[in-house]
Each structure stands twice: as C-alpha cells, then as structure tokens.
C-alpha cells in the first residue's frame, strides 16, 4: 500500500490536519479535463477527498441516430465521430461487429490493410495521449514533437482516403477503396523515421526526473480493481494484467505477426501507477511499428471489396464484436431484426468504462495528481458521452 500525502501529513504531525473541506468544480471548461468532463472535487486543502464525475456534456444521441439510418453502412461516419482521435479503430470495431452479425469473411488483403490502418491510428492516438499528458504535467514542448510525428500519419491517411480525421474508410465487407500507389513506400519510410524521433522524445519526457517524480506512485490502480472495473487497454496492462484482445481474442490476422503485449513493470514506481500507464502507451507504439513493418512487407495482392448487397438485411439476432482500440476494448453490440436498419447499437466505449474508476484511484491524491490521473486515463469525451 502506498502512503498518500494525507497519510504522511497525519503521521508526521501525530494529529489530524483536517480542516474545512472545499468543493471545487473542475470543468466542463478546464484545460486539463480533455474536453468537457466535469469533476466535482471535494478538497481538503490540496488533497482530494472525493471526486464525482459528471459526464454527458457531449452527448449526441449516437445510439438513437443509428436506429434511424437507412442502412448498416451509414452508421460508419457516425462511428468516426465517437472517438475522433482514433476514428479508424472505431470503424474497425464497428465493421468487425457487423461482419460477425452478417457472418461475412473479407479477403486477406483487406485484413492486412485494416491492420496497417488500425496500428497507424493507434500510434497517432497514443501520440496525442502522451503529448497532452505532458501538457498536463506542465511540459509543453514534447507535445509538439509528438504532433510532428502524428502529422506524418495523418498525411498517410489523407493520401489513402482524402480525410485527415474522420475517414469513413473501412466498410462492411471491405474498404472504400484500395491503397494509393506509393503508400507502401511512404509508410515504410515513416516507420524508419518514427523510430529515430521517438527515441529522443522518450528521453525528453518519459525519463525526465521531474516527470518521474510527478507520475511514479501516483494514482495506483491495483490489478483486481482494474479487472473488476473492466478497465481495458493500456490502463489494464499497466496494472500488470497480461491481456490484449489482439492476441487473446483475435479478430483479424494479428496472430500472423510477431509482436509483444506490453505490460506495466513498475520500473520507477509500482505497477499500475500513472507513469506505467504512460509508459505502456509509449512502448506499444514500438510494437505497432513492428506490426506495420511486417504487414507492409507481406501485403498480399487481391480485391479490397467483397460483393455484398447495398442494403444489408441480416438475419435477426445479435452480435457483440470488440477490438483493441488505443484506449482499450472497443465493442459494438448490434441487435438486428428483419430490417435494413440496425434495431439497436450499443457502443462499449473504453474511455467510458475506464473513467468510472477515477473516484477509486484519486482519493487521497493531491490536486495536481488528479490532473495526472485524468491525463493517464486518456479519455476522449466524444467517446465517453457518445
């Protein structure tokens, strides 16, 4: 058990330092709540006594919208807008669920391209996560270094599908169109450059002494709590659970490639702290680069669309498809009845579930630690509120 600052303050003076508590409203307009999250924070001096999250400021009735589409394909642009920093992964999750519902098998080349896109997107998303986390810690400079690399990924996406943020690229039964010429060379070049630049930024931020002091042993999420709260993605792995959907519940051809699941080891603090969550993301990017390089090297030829009817009418039933998004398990539960529109779509947003643990891990931390904890959960409010 880690001693919180409150404990230390109490034991060192031998008496309670508790004074009158103060309720402050953090958000929805606050620089470090990553959007429009509102936290009702009860503070005892600088020490957090209780945190009550209030969400829903960005609720756009995604699930209701889906029930009023004219086809299953039409949902995809809406899915993009859920987690707007990792739109490719959202599309991937939705098409995986829909293809499971329709029992469609897609050509091999589609799988490869999807993996390349999803991993590029994971890198782009992690770059934002770590960069903005640096801003939360007061280090502004690494953020722009990370954005420089993200820009290159967005350029790759732009040449593929014309959009930089909301792609509408993966369709049920395939892709909207094939990779452009030169994509493979440019993506390979990106992998080479990225490895170099990542190394220097890693030294600038993640192994900075002040950064370690600020993040190690802060916001510790124990293993059993992480599982009980169904945390997923880097959040779960940083707590020492060796679990990655890409390996343990394979939804596409990830098993063909050689890569490792990154688990938090607690190099500088304890397993499950803020530093580990950040470091899991950092190291995952290396693994993603490995996957991309292998996929690019063995990219098969072939068709990128499977002939499916324009107006898909699945047999009644339901299916739950999930993928490993940058933030964790992103799932779509689709209920179909005999119709061309989905009867019900529920999005299992990883950030929504991960955020629910915040009250548990931020009690007894300092106000500045709370900022670090929010940053380390890596929430995207578009996904939390849907």
């Amino acid at each position, binding site marked *: 058990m880690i001693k919180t600052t409150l404990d230390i303050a109490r034991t060192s003076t031998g008496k309670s330092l508790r004074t009158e508590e103060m309720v402050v409203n953090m958000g929805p307009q606050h620089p470090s709540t990553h959007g429009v999250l509102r936290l009702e924070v009860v503070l005892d001096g600088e020490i957090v006594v209780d945190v009550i999250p209030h969400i829903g400021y960005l609720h756009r009735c995604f699930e209701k919208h889906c029930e009023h589409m004219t086809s299953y394909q039409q949902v995809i642009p809406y899915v993009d807008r859920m987690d707007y920093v990792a739109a490719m992964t959202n599309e991937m999750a939705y098409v995986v669920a829909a293809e499971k519902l329709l029992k469609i098998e897609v050509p091999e080349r589609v799988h490869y391209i999807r993996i390349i896109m999803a991993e590029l997107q994971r890198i782009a998303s992690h770059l934002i996560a770590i960069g903005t986390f640096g801003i939360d810690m007061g280090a502004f400079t690494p953020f722009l*270094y990370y954005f420089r690399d993200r820009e290159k990924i967005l350029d790759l996406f732009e040449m593929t599908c014309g959009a930089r943020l909301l792609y509408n690229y993966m369709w049920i039964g395939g892709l909207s169109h094939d990779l452009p010429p030169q994509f493979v060379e440019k993506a390979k070049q990106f992998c080479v450059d990225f490895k170099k630049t990542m190394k220097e930024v890693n030294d600038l931020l993640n192994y900075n002494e002040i950064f370690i002091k600020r993040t190690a042993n802060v916001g510790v999420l124990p293993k059993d709590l992480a599982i009980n709260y169904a945390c997923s993605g880097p959040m779960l792995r940083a707590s020492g659970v060796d679990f990655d959907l890409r390996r343990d519940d394979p939804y596409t051809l990830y098993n063909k490639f050689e890569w490792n699941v990154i688990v938090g080891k607690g190099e500088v603090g304890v397993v499950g702290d803020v530093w580990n969550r950040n470091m899991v993301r950092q190291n995952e990017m290396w693994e993603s680069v490995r996957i991309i390089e292998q996929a690019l090297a063995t990219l098969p030829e072939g068709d990128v669309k499977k002939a499916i009817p324009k107006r898909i009418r699945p047999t009644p039933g339901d299916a739950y498809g999930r993928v490993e998004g940058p933030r964790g398990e992103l799932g779509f539960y689709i209920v179909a009845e005999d119709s061309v529109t989905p009867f019900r779509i529920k999005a299992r947003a990883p950030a929504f579930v991960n955020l629910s643990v915040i009250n548990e891990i931020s009690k007894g931390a300092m106000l500045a630690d709370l900022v670090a904890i929010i940053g380390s959960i890596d929430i995207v409010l578009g996904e939390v509120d849907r």
Partner: protein
Amino acid sequence: MENILQLLSNPIVSAVLMALAPLLFILPYALVTIYIEMKMAAHIQNRLAYMQTGWHGTLQPFADILKLLQKEDIIPTAASKFLFILAPYLVFVGTYSSFAVLPFSSAFIGSNIDLGIFFLIAVSSLVVVGLLMSGWASNNKWSLFGALRSAAQIVSYEIPSALAILGVVMVSGTMSTQEMTHFQDGGIGQWIIFGGNLPLWQKLSLIPFMIILFLIYLVSSMAEVNRTPFDIPEAESELVQGYNTEYSGMKFAIFYLAEYANLFLVSAVVVILFFGGWTSPFGTFLSGPVWGAFWFVTKGMLFVCLNIWLRWTLPRLRVDQLMYVSWKVLTPFALLCVLAIGLIVVM
C-alpha cells in the same frame, strides 16, 4: 533654458525623473523579451512562431500590447472591486521599486543606498501581497488556490535566496549593490563566483561554495518569479491560470509586465551577486559607464534566456515537492555554505 535647469534642480522633480528612468528600460525590454521568449519556445518546439507581422514577426509584441489595451476591462460582479483593481499595480510596484537599487552602470543607479540588496529582498516581497490580494479579490476558487500557493512558494524560497545573498555579502563585505560591483571590478577572475577580490588561497577555497550558492540562488529565483518548473501558482493545466484567471485587458497586461520585469530583476541580481554586475569580463578593455550598461543588460538577458530555455523544457513540480526542494534541500545547503564561507573569510 534656465527655467528648465531650475526645474531639474528641484529635488522633487529630479526624484520623479529618476524614478521614471527604469521604465524607459522595462518597456522596451518587455517587448523584446516577449519576442525572444516566443521565438525561443518556437524553435525549441520545432516551429517558427509568428512570421506575418513585420520581418519574422517583429511587430507582434506591439500588436499584442495594442490588443490588450483595446480589450474590455472586465471586473467580475462578485469580485472585491477595490482590491481587484489595486492588486496588479501593487505587484508591479513591488517589482518596479526594486529597480531603484540596480546599478545599470558605474554612472547610473537609481538610489545608491548602503542597504541596497537588503532593500531589494524586502521590497520584492511586496509582490506576495499583491498576488494574494488578486487571488482573494477575484472570488474564484482556482485563483484563491493560486494565490495561496504563490504565497507559500515565494515565502519559502525567500529563505534560501536570502541565505545565498548573505554568503555573497560576507565575501564582498558590503550590502550596497554598487560597491558590490566595484568589489568585482577587474575582469572575469574577480567575479564573486570565482572568489572575488580576495587572496588566492581564499579564492580557490571559495569557488565550490560560490558555485553551490549560485545554483541555490538561481533555483530560488526561478521559484520567486513563478516560472516553470515552479509555475505552480499559475499552473495552467491545474489552476487554469491561478491568480490572474479573472484579469483581462490592461490589468492583465500589468501582471504580465510585472512578471517580465521580475524576471529581469532576479537575473540582474544573479549578475550583481556572482557575475560582476556591470564590469567587463576583460578587465579594463571595453569598460566605462556606457559599456557597463551594455555588459549589465547583456549578462542579465543571458540569464533571462536561461530561464526561458528551462521553462520550455521541463515539466512542472508538484506543490509538496516544491516545498521539499526549498526546505529540505536548498535551505540546509545554503546554511552549510554560509558557514563554510564565514570560516574562510574570517581566516
């Protein structure tokens, strides 16, 4: 003509003129530093900063000032109006009056009092009152947090910085800033960081302690001007903007000006204490009253740039870590250094 001379010889008029003189320095200095800071930050971060207004954006600071002047001056309804208006001026006064004892050159010093450096420590603490006032008067919980944090921080860091100054005063034997500079006249070897104007064995044994004292003063001065890694009172990502959240327009500009003025002030103190003030590093070469002003401002700006560099490189500390650094690291080391310097100087 005679009338003008007569007017100038009037002690009150000359005192007012003398008091306004640093303003002639501070205003252009602030414009230049805003520009330097933005450009340095940009180049550290792999970008260009403003390029559109004038050659390489040189007119941008003027545009910024113009914008701030035009902005609506908002006073929150629930704010304590009198204190809210008074606070930024108090902060600026605290910083500005300290400029009185800065010896810009051998020929110019606002007021050459015997207790110069002591006056500086005393008056620059006035800033805390202004910050507390602004935080409280804003009637905003985040601002109050910022104000309380800054009070705790500045008061804590005044102790190691005062001890560091004490060490230098023991070596130079004077509290007057002008005399302290004269003590270091005669080239780079005579600067206090290299033991000052003392016999050789004393110089050599003083150097390690002076370097430690210099680092202590540098760190605590950064904390006193609230800049990263010690920008906890402002802490954009935690406290939005701390004590100046509610300020806009001219009042915000004055806070800004005071911050930059304060930045030069502490850098200038570093220069006076350790790096020979206005003296030329080459002995008599390039020395004299005008060159003195050049050296003083150049050395000061070097430390301003050092501050900017650190600000855009390092993350921010947490409030308890900040206190730890002050009370458990800097203060004991400063005390040890003062003790050692005392022994060396007495022997």
